[in-house]
């Protein structure tokens, strides 16, 4: 088990290094370097050269890469080119929002959707299963901004409940007031991830249900709920955890539409603003953070899969 986990961590590290190369190279391929962008219209040949020397941009790319990667490891992400504010500070202002929304959505959305998916697998072909499949397919197909617009129309403008954008600061708020603070973003995102989770958990459980040992259990007369929760679920945890991890990573990195629509600043908005203002330092730093988020969450998912499934631990 431990050697497996160590191996898995090794693979994760290789991924991180590879991605860091790609991010670094990507920002180098783009026309115009950081010095040019910081100087803007005031760029003359002399002060451009001076600025490059000061930023270390005149050194070979490999050395620049190692300096950058070294700084990143020690927690120094550099300063934003657009505003000269340390990146860590810009991220700190937004990380809270993003993480709170992600965690709250996960706490509410994941258990409910898993339960609904498993229930659907218990009674395949029933009216409940059909309605749920129909609704979840529709939700997969509808983009976030549509869901968000409908929710705002229904709750805020129609019934006068809640706020159309996220208003005010999160400071000093407890669990339930945080939920009401981010009510609509959480609901929108829960719908988005629920559709995927419901379908995946239903499929994973049904997949196991058709295997011989379950048929044996049915023949022995084991009650249906016991078959599902005792026998089938454990074997389908691997794929389910994977989907959950992917969705969590998405909640941290990819919710730009929801952030913009509900007007709260988060990490996804920040990286888009970084690209727009050609703030390479910011794009590099955030790119790495997003990469780490994915790698760590997938690592956790894989370890959970190993733990739940002996066959993965002892491959033939």
């Amino acid at each position, binding site marked *: 088990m431990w050697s497996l986990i160590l191996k898995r961590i090794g693979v994760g590290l290789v991924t991180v290094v590879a991605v860091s190369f790609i991010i670094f190279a990507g920002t180098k391929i783009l026309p115009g370097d950081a010095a040019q962008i910081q100087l803007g219209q005031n760029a003359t040949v002399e002060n451009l050269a001076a600025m490059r020397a000061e930023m270390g941009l005149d050194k070979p790319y490999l050395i620049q890469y190692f300096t950058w990667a070294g700084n990143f490891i020690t927690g120094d992400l550099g300063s934003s080119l657009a505003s000269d504010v340390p990146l860590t500070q*810009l991220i700190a202002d937004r990380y809270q929002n993003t993480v709170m929304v992600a965690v709250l959505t996960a706490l509410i959305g994941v258990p409910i959707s898993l339960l609904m998916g498993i229930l659907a697998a218990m009674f395949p072909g029933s009216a409940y299963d059909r309605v749920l499949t129909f609704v979840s397919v529709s939700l997969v197909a509808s983009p976030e901004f549509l869901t968000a617009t409908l929710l705002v129309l229904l709750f805020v403008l129609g019934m006068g409940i809640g706020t159309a954008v996220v208003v005010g600061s999160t400071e000093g708020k407890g669990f339930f007031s945080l939920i009401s603070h981010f009510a609509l973003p959480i609901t929108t995102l829960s719908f988005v991830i629920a559709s995927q989770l419901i379908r995946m958990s239903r499929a994973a459980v049904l997949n196991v249900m058709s295997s011989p040992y379950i048929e044996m259990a049915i023949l022995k007369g084991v009650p249906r709920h016991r078959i599902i929760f005792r026998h089938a679920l454990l074997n389908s945890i691997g794929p389910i955890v994977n989907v959950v991890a992917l969705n969590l990573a998405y909640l941290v990195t990819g919710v730009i539409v929801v952030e913009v629509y509900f*007007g709260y600043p988060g990490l996804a908005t920040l990286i888009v603003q970084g690209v727009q203002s050609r703030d390479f330092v910011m794009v590099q730093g955030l790119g790495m953070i997003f990469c780490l988020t994915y790698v760590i969450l997938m690592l956790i998912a894989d370890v959970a899969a190993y733990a739940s499934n002996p066959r993965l631990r002892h491959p033939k």
Partner: protein
Amino acid sequence: MSEFKNNDPRLANLPYAERQIVDEMHRRGASRRDVIGYMMAAGATFAASGAIFDGVAHAAAHMPKRGGKLIMAGDQHGPNDTLDPQLFTSAVDYFRGRMFYGSLTRLTDSLGYEPELAEEILSNDTATEWTFKLRRGIEFHNGKTFNADDVMYTMNRHSMEGSISNASSLVSMVDRWEKVNDYEVRAILSSPNADLPIALGTFHFKIIADGTTDFSTANGTGPYRAAEFKPGVRAVGRPFENFWSEGGYLDELEHYGIGDPVSRLNAFMAGDVDAMVNLPPKAIPQVEAAAGRDVWSLKSGAYVNIAPHIKLAGPSGNEHVWKAMQHLQDRERLVKGVLKGQGSLGNDQPINAAYFDHFADLPQRELDPDKAKWHWNQSGLGSTSLEIVAAEVAPGAVEQCTFMAREARKVGINFDVKKVTTDGYWGAVWLKAPICVASWNMRPTANIMMTLAFAGSAAWNETRWNNEHFNQTLVDVRGVTDPTKRAQMYADLQTMIHEENGMSLPAHRNYVDAVGSHVKGLTHVPLNNFGGAESPVTLWRDDA
């Protein structure tokens, strides 16, 4: 020495009988528009009548109430939001700046000025030397007493060699600043500028304390102190207990951006925010119909235009071509249809009634297909299709071309309107394509606007029109302090652009914001959103 304390036509300048009528109108509940309409019928300019209405309204309105909280929603904000006045770039910066800082002069609704941190403003007869006598007993938020050193430090940041100020061009004629004593400073100019105090009332010239280098928080003389500031997240102001003047009535004033127009409108209509900037034209009827929601519109000099490069050998350099284009503009339709009435007719020159130096007697150019046809025939282009590059840089920017093309087709003239994305438009197309569109914001004075975009040597001279007489007059008028002479010179300048520059300028757009009816103390300085970003001082809540 002649004194320029105030060039603003105010209520006090009205004859007594007129004042009675306006007072009466206001008591009956006449709107700003009614009063302005009446005054303009009586022969006043738009700017003057607006100022008069404000005078009456101000006197008649209830005394401002203290307390309560307001949330004012701007549009784009982000990581480059700053508290350093010289680096301000966006409307959210300007508004936030006014919450926390003060300036030497304050702009009035007619784009005149009033003294603020300066108590008295004097110039010599040629407007080459300006003396600012400073108000005593003003405190910064950190308790420091305001004096000449702060003004010297602030102004030198804009005027020194290698300044990174975004507004250094507005004071480029200032040779040096001199400290006369602790409460008096003097600007020595290298060329005359009668409008210097107006420039110093604009966004970037907010006074900071001597020696300030850390802008993580704001230390100003403004009505609110910075309780919270996070770039791209929010700014919160709490009243500054030692504010020297009237104003700063709220317990809390919060300002941040909601970039998406639909979300911003949702938030406003749901009452999550008390006011919003840049109401999309389509939403104007919705806001007008809603109870407790008003449109906060400022008649401004901002405009869209089509600029041909007239020094090129091709069609864009042909005088008859651009004259035909000017006669093909359906200006009324553009203002009514696209801007939903929140704009005014353009007259192929940039200085409209929102400017102090507007020349009202310049005949309005109108849609005239016959004249256009005649010019087109003279140009010898025949049925050649002429390409115009357009991007959605502002409301009406593309429509001014498509409307024109439609009128042109009726008389057998062909335009090919090529629509491109706004991404990179200013770098890749503007000033490069032979004929393309542009969008311009208003500038504080006619002179600044014309110097920026119409002087022969200006970097942003879109048509490359270069008229020696115009260039010279533009410089000379800066030193003219006689009102009649000044008016005549500005009339000449505007006429020259109208006749010779070559661009079509079909419409000026208003700044259109929306505000809850409970929000009082609105300003109407036409330079930017939220009343020219001058409103933070005077805003208050009626239901507080």
